[in-house]
């Protein structure tokens, strides 16, 4: 036996079989050639190649069958991150405000079901939110139909467990607002297709869509400030039985909105079941006659234009008679007042005289620069246009001087006041979080000296014995502010019992002009007097205390330190400030 043959017996049996097969084929080739049958030789070769290819294809078929029957990656979609989602919304500190979570839509195909009574009986038991009329329409439909959407994984599992033929699911994206009603109006909501319909969801729709896979979109609000503002607004509105209310907190230098609340509150998770009236963000979308808070603008105009200083005297002892109307004061007994007392006594006559002194052209120029004659420039699409008289005649000028004959949104008031209180730069409000090093560029509306004077005047209104804003004072935070109590016009007639009571505050009023400073506005629509307020429902009695509570709660959050307080006040002092007068 040749060594090569011996080697054949040493190889594994399978290989030995292959080698033998090759030897037989080779032998057949040799024999066919020796016998002169060349065609037979070629036929055998072709058969060999054919067998080889067949073997290859059989291997491929087995592999393909294995890959099809036993996939290595399971197609699990139950918790997969939703495609086409919107970016998360977070507050300025990264707290989650809105997030997309996987939801499911339910579909039903009547052609695949033979017992619709079972579906009619079982499906509503696990989907109580499914309207009966829609279920009936779906059961008698001709083709596969959408039943209901927005199911959570738990709800989907409950429906799936019923095992109803013809019921199927498809993935959808559901927008969830984990904070519920907190910040609901500012955050807004989206439609079923994922497009923003109100608030930041609408205002920043493109940004949110484009950032879906790039990270969260930060808003300017501080959740802690927002919650405190909303809570105090709710407390005040409930206490005084108001039909509506507004709360705004802004950084006067950057224009960032740190908190914005509207009463009644609104939970964007339940947008479909919320009455449309409750979904209105009154802070931006409603215009009010602002009342005496407008005197801040009038005095800023008068002082900045050099028409008066805080000691300029104004005769207020008799009503101001103008064509078509007579202007009275609520603070009785005043005769001649210096301008600062016109402010702290909230004298309509004094403010009207200053307005008339300025004249319509100057008032138009200043009020336009304060942004009071246009919708507040903000990303919020709800920002409402003001109601302004076409012509500024003397009667209109006098009325506008103390906040009548004009209706503006609280957002516009906040924007204008920021410009007066931040050193004189008008900066649009924003709901976007700005870079800490960014200083927004605005346009100058008043001088820095005028801004300083207005801060001092507002502080005086809170600290002076007969100031209308005493109830907003918070020890150590140097709060300043101005009350407003506008009588509402019902059916073309002024109703003296129905007020829009407000308090516009700034804190701290002391410190350099570029120091951190915040504006707070609380506005109550038709608050009712209580026994505690001695029959008054004015801004000084209703909105000012709420502003004080807001400031006391949010000051630590925005980094404003309480100034040292007299120890005598600490020990047994600190009694609640007593308001003298009507608090208008």
């Amino acid at each position: 036996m040749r060594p090569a043959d011996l080697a054949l017996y040493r190889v594994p049996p399978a290989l030995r079989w292959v080698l033998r097969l090759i030897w037989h084929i080779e032998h057949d080739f040799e024999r066919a050639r020796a016998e002169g049958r060349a065609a037979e030789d070629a036929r055998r070769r072709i058969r060999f190649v054919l067998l080889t290819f067949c073997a290859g294809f059989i291997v491929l078929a087995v592999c393909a069958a294995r890959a099809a029957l036993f996939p290595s990656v399971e197609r699990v979609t139950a918790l997969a991150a939703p495609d086409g989602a919107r970016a998360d919304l977070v507050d300025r500190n990264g707290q989650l405000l809105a997030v997309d979570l996987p939801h499911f839509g339910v579909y039903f195909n009547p052609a695949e079901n033979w017992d619709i009574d079972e579906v009619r009986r079982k499906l509503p038991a696990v989907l109580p939110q499914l309207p009966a009329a829609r279920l009936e329409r779906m059961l008698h439909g001709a083709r596969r139909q959408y039943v209901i959407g927005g199911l959570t994984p738990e709800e989907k599992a409950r429906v799936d467990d019923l095992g109803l033929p013809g019921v199927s699911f498809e993935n959808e994206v559901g927008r969830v607002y984990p904070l519920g009603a907190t910040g609901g109006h500012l955050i807004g909501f989206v439609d079923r297709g994922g497009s923003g319909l109100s608030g930041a969801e609408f205002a920043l729709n493109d940004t949110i869509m484009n950032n879906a896979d790039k990270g969260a979109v930060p808003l300017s609000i501080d959740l802690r400030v927002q919650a405190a503002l909303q809570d105090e607004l709710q407390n005040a509105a409930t206490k005084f039985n108001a039909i509506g209310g507004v709360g705004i907190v802004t950084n006067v230098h950057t224009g960032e909105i740190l908190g914005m609340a509207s009463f009644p509150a609104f939970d964007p998770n339940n947008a479909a079941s919320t009455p449309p009236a409750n979904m209105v963000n009154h802070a931006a979308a409603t215009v009010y006659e602002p009342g005496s808070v407008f005197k801040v603008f009038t005095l800023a105009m008068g002082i900045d234009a050099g028409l008066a200083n805080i000691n300029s005297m104004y005769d207020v002892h008799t009503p101001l008679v103008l064509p078509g109307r007579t202007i009275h004061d609520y603070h009785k007994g005043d005769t001649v007042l210096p301008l600062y007392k016109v402010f702290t006594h909230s004298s309509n006559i004094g403010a009207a005289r200053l307005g008339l002194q300025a004249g319509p052209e100057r008032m138009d120029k200043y009020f336009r620069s304060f942004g009071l004659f246009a919708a507040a420039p903000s990303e919020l699409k709800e920002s409402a246009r003001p109601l302004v008289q076409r012509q500024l005649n003397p009667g209109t000028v006098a009325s506008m001087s103390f906040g009548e004959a004009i209706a503006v949104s609280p957002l516009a008031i906040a924007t204008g006041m920021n410009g007066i209180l931040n050193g004189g730069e008008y900066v649009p409000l924003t709901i976007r979080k700005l870079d800490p090093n960014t200083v927004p560029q605005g346009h100058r509306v008043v001088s820095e000296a005028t801004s300083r004077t207005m801060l001092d005047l507002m502080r005086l209104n809170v600290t002076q014995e007969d100031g209308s804003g005493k109830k907003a004072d918070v020890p150590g935070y140097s709060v300043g502010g101005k009350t407003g109590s506008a009588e509402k016009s019902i059916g073309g007639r002024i109703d003296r019992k129905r007020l829009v009571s407000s308090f516009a505050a700034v804190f701290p009023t002391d410190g350099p002009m570029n120091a951190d400073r915040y504006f707070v506005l609380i506005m109550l629509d038709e608050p009712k007097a209580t026994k505690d307020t001695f029959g008054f429902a004015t801004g000084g009695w209703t909105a000012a205390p709420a502003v004080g509570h807001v400031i006391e709660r949010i000051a630590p959050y925005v980094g404003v330190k309480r100034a040292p307080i007299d120890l005598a006040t600490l020990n047994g002092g600190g009694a609640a400030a007593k308001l003298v007068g009507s608090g208008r």
Partner: protein
Amino acid sequence: MNLFSLLNRRVRGFRILELIGAGFLTALVLTVYLAKTGAGDKRDDIDRVQQQIEEETAQIRLLRAEVAAEERPERLEALAGQYLGLQPVSAKHEIEPEALADVAQLSRPAEAKPATAAVAAATPQVPPERAPVAKATHVSIGAASTASVSTLQAAAYVVRQSGAPVGAASSRAVAAHAAGQGEH
């Protein structure tokens, strides 16, 4: 023997050139097959990991939403008020560290009153002894001396440290509560 004749030589009926070609082709097919199979396996691994990432991401989003809902400020405030009696710190309970001594001074009684004769008679005559060295930092309110009471009263005022006005709110209120100065 030149290269052509070598390649043309037959081994078991096959030209060497044919054998080399067949071997090369087989090796090529095998290599491609192995490479494709390996790449497919890797792709499967990547898909599997990607799927796990997506599932985990979805779970994280879900958990973040749940945490945000649980940490709603109004909910925390209600719980803190209901179970701990906490409220925002008022001005009366906030003070600069430098003023603590003044507060303690103000809180100290003007002068200790002498014990009445009856009480003195009822008190057992215990010889004075050296006070033990304090080992624990805990102070029992019931056993606190006048000075200790002053210290606690001082502690009722919040010591405002720079940079910690917010986070310390709970501890401030707890301190005030422990000293009986908390607001209810």
